[in-house]
């Protein structure tokens, strides 16, 4: 796509192929390519050099509607609560470790809530991240009520005058009604303690996920009011193009991206960079 090409049907087919293979999704791709076809005609664009900036701009406009969306909306004068949700194995616990590190480096006092009381080794895993980031972890015994852990963590965070509370939850598939109800309960418990909390509910999405990510965003949104996305494992070969459809249909912005397994492998989302990588 980077070499000079005549804008013809072959060009559009090749563009479709690139975008579909980036997990943008066939419906979204067809809409975008149809739009592009019309604009090329209207503006009499005949070579790819003229069309590429139009295409890039189209995507960036979808993904970065306004600058402030990329930052986290947390209060600066009292406790900020961030709830992490998502399906199994996407990187919630690891992302919390990285984010704790980010906040700590910014001079904030951070506390972690070990809200995954179900999976083997989950609490120990978060504790290691707590150690690495130099922050405290509030936990109960495995098998205890996650809502109770989060309630406890809020009390502790407030009494210790922490700036940020990051809440881990167990992975769960969005079609499991009882697990989504459990998540909804955790969300309500947070709200009851701090009326405008959670200040952010971040859906952690794995960049290798295909079209199912859209269903994840919809159903987690309904159960726990998702405010943003962390897109992990972008250091692999998957492009995570599904976030375009998610932004288009649900107006959910990507706030951060995970680029590895180490403490500092978390970056704020950059729409331009992301779109360029789609075509790389």
């Amino acid at each position, binding site marked *: 796509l980077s070499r000079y090409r005549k804008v013809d049907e072959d060009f559009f087919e090749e563009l479709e192929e690139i975008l579909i293979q980036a*997990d943008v999704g066939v419906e979204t791709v067809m809409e975008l390519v149809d739009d592009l076809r019309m604009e090329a005609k209207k503006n009499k664009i005949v070579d790819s050099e003229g069309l590429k900036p139009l295409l890039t701009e189209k995507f960036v406009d979808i993904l970065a509607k306004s600058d402030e969306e990329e930052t986290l909306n947390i209060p600066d004068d009292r406790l900020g609560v961030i709830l992490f949700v998502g399906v199994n194995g996407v990187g919630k616990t690891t992302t919390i470790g990285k984010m704790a590190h980010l906040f700590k480096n910014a001079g904030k006092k951070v506390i972690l809530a070990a809200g995954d009381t179900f999976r083997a080794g989950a609490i120990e895993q978060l504790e*290691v991240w707590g150690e690495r980031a130099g922050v405290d972890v509030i936990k109960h015994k495995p098998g205890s009520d996650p809502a109770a852990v989060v309630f406890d963590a809020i009390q502790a965070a407030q009494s210790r005058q922490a700036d940020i509370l990051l809440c881990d939850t167990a992975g769960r598939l969005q079609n499991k009604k009882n697990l989504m109800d459990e998540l909804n309960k955790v969300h309500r418990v947070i709200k009851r303690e701090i009326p405008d909390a959670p200040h952010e509910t971040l859906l952690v999405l794995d960049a*290798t*996920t*295909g079209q199912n990510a859209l269903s994840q965003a919809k159903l987690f949104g309904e159960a726990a009011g998702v405010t943003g996305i962390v897109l992990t494992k972008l250091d692999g070969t998957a492009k995570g193009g599904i976030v375009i459809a998610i932004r288009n249909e649900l107006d959910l912005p990507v706030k951060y991206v995970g680029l590895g397994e180490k403490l500092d492998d978390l970056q704020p989302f950059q729409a331009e960079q992301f779109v360029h990588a789609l075509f790389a």
Partner: protein
Amino acid sequence: GLADRLQETLKKIRGKGKVTEADVKSMMREVRLALLEADVNFKVVKDFVNRVKERAVGQEVLKSLTPGQQVIKVVNDELTQLMGGEQSKLATSARPPTVIMMVGLQGAGKTTSTGKLAKYLQNQNRSPMLIAADIYRPAAIKQLEVLGEQLDVPVFSLGNKENPVKIVQQGIQKAKEEHCDYVLIDTAGRLHVDEALMDELHQIKQEANPDEILLVIDAMTGQDAVNVAQSFNEQLELSGVVLTKLDGDTRGGAALSVKAVTGKPIKFVGMGEKMDALEPFHPDRMASRILG
């Protein structure tokens, strides 16, 4: 689903009740869209539709009173055949212990599947031993040990300060001493493009000489499934695949992509987080699921 969409397509193009080759072409377009929406890889879809097109313009479709249904039957049969074939049996070595190596991307479900396979083997009166070869992920060893405890299956570990190759070497030795007839090696999740870590897997393979190398892959994986499967297969020569999280609502097109690009059988599917949530792979059920 696809059946309704084919009906719609037929309503628009049907003239005197007889279906033409052009009509079938429109129907194949719907099939292509259905497969792409199900996350089957772009190139795999192209090849598949070309394969099926020939049968789809055959007499069984053109002469049928319900050509839409017939096309679905043809597609379903072809999908089932493509993904099926071999039995989903686990290898058994002539010289125990049989060694099984679990590999795959981060978070795919390797550790959980290792526990499930141990339970599966226990149910067949085997005595498996688990080897904790993930020295990187925080509390990975602890996770495997908790599963081992739940199942009353021994877990061999040297902690996270020893080289995984050494862990595997000593683990297999220990399994022989304990008369365990199966060894399941849980490895760390890694990217197929991480040269150093893929080389580590190669070294573990050299040391362990496994009877099975199973790629564990998440059923909700999108287009990237072909890259991952192809790369792991080229670098290690897989013996099979375990497809996890099939209890979700993903269409699971990755199953077709992985089978098409590696030729290796999907032996088991993960249907939940508990240790009994492992089932043999049913290609016909997977085909209907992919087609939606």
